[in-house]
């Protein structure tokens, strides 16, 4: 009989790992806390850099699950480690055993209201990148009504010691460039500004997206972090920043402000780490055994981790890690069985 492998988290990473493990002859069990599989991918409309439909990728990932057991709306109560592997018990009392455990519980979006000086949740016209994706997907919104001037704010909740997150979220520069172009497509008469500290367009074709944003869409890039936002008497917003390349402080009146909220550790990572007796990095993401040679393996025997739970990643990076972790689990089990450890 095929051996069970428990996967905690049914986002892109958990789904891809489950499929690879199934193809390797195992019987994966995905435990997902939300009502549906898919993780953050469910929230996005089109994906950078080419604008592929997120729905299409989601469909691909969530179909063909034959041979994979999955449970949604689960609440993990305890995880115990024994010589034979791991026992995960849910709040319903049901428990599952497996010789290896894979953590793919992903990330959390930075809660933008925590960055009070940007006014999310206070001023109507301040929205987040996630809100904008929902608007793109649905095509309507109460706030977005023919904006004439739109601002994008990079690094919201990232690279900011004031909110306790020093790390760069990696995906939000590309998201901002993508969304700015999409907004210009929808509102050709709007003037669009993007406030950045560094444009981190690291991936293949990402720089081309930037060039397109400048050349085709005329997005105005201003190098300066937004320091504060306030509301004017007419309901429009006033943004303060310094144009650091011109060495001039500036004030800009705009109709819509989009905050690029970043990637922070998922809430459950801390409690799972505690139960499993593993370390978190200073940034709150899981710490692998070796960041270069063993990024998908924990110090503990039989424990593996992949995807955004070990730090910000794009979807292709996440999927590659998912496959890598699955193969590593396979190798680990083969070695353990041969040497009689399990």
């Amino acid at each position, binding site marked *: 009989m095929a051996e069970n492998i428990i996967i905690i988290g049914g986002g892109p990473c958990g789904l891809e790992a489950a499929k690879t493990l199934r193809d390797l002859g195992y019987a994966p069990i995905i435990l997902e806390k939300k009502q549906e599989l898919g993780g953050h991918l469910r929230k996005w409309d089109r994906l950078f850099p080419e604008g592929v439909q997120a729905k299409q990728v989601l469909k691909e990932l969530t179909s063909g699950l034959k041979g994979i057991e999955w449970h949604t709306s689960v609440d993990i109560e305890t995880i115990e480690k024994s010589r034979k592997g791991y026992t995960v018990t849910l709040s319903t009392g049901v428990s599952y055993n497996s010789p290896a455990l894979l953590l793919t519980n992903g990330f959390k979006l930075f809660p933008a209201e925590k960055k009070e000086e940007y006014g999310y949740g206070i001023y109507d016209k301040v929205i987040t990148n996630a809100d904008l994706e929902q608007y793109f997907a649905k095509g309507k919104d109460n706030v977005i009504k023919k904006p004439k001037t739109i601002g994008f704010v990079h690094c919201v909740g990232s*690279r900011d*010691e004031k909110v306790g997150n020093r790390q760069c979220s990696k995906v939000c520069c590309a998201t901002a460039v993508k969304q700015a172009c999409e907004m210009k497509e929808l509102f050709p008469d709007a003037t669009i500004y993007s406030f950045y*500290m560094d444009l981190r367009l690291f991936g293949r074709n990402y720089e081309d997206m930037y060039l397109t944003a400048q050349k085709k869409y005329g997005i105005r890039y201003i190098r*300066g972090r937004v320091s*504060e936002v306030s509301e004017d008497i007419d309901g429009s917003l006033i943004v303060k*920043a*310094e*144009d*650091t390349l011109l060495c001039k*402080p500036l004030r800009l009146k705009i109709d819509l402000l989009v905050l690029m909220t970043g990637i922070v550790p998922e809430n459950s990572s801390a409690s799972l780490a505690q139960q499993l007796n593993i370390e978190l990095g200073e940034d709150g993401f899981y710490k692998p055994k070796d960041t270069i040679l063993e990024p998908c393996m924990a110090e503990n025997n039989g424990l593996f981790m992949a995807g955004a739970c070990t730090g910000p990643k794009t979807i292709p990076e996440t999927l590659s890690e998912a496959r890598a972790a699955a193969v590593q689990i396979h190798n680990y089990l083969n070695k353990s069985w041969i040497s009689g450890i399990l």
Partner: protein
Amino acid sequence: MDFGYSLSKSSTMKIENLENSKFKALAKLEPDATKCIGCGCCTASCSAGVFADMSLRQILLSLQRDCQDKYLPMLQNCMLCGKCMLVCPRGINTRHLILSICKIYGIEQ
């Protein structure tokens, strides 16, 4: 022969021989001096900046490049209100930093 222009002093910066003992002393007194990422938040929110030139970002950079003569006088406009401290994403203790700059570079507040 007159070509209509003359040789003038080069305007390029020479940074090979930065004499930075003063900056080192500053960093010793206030280690945050090396943490700036040049984001401009301090300048954008500066209470004095509305009326006069005041850019902590520019001052800090000029100190690191040892070309501060033109920039230090801006400090005279600072009211030590501490607003820059509230917005600095690197959590720099800007008030103490400004006071330390004044001390090391001999500026009277």
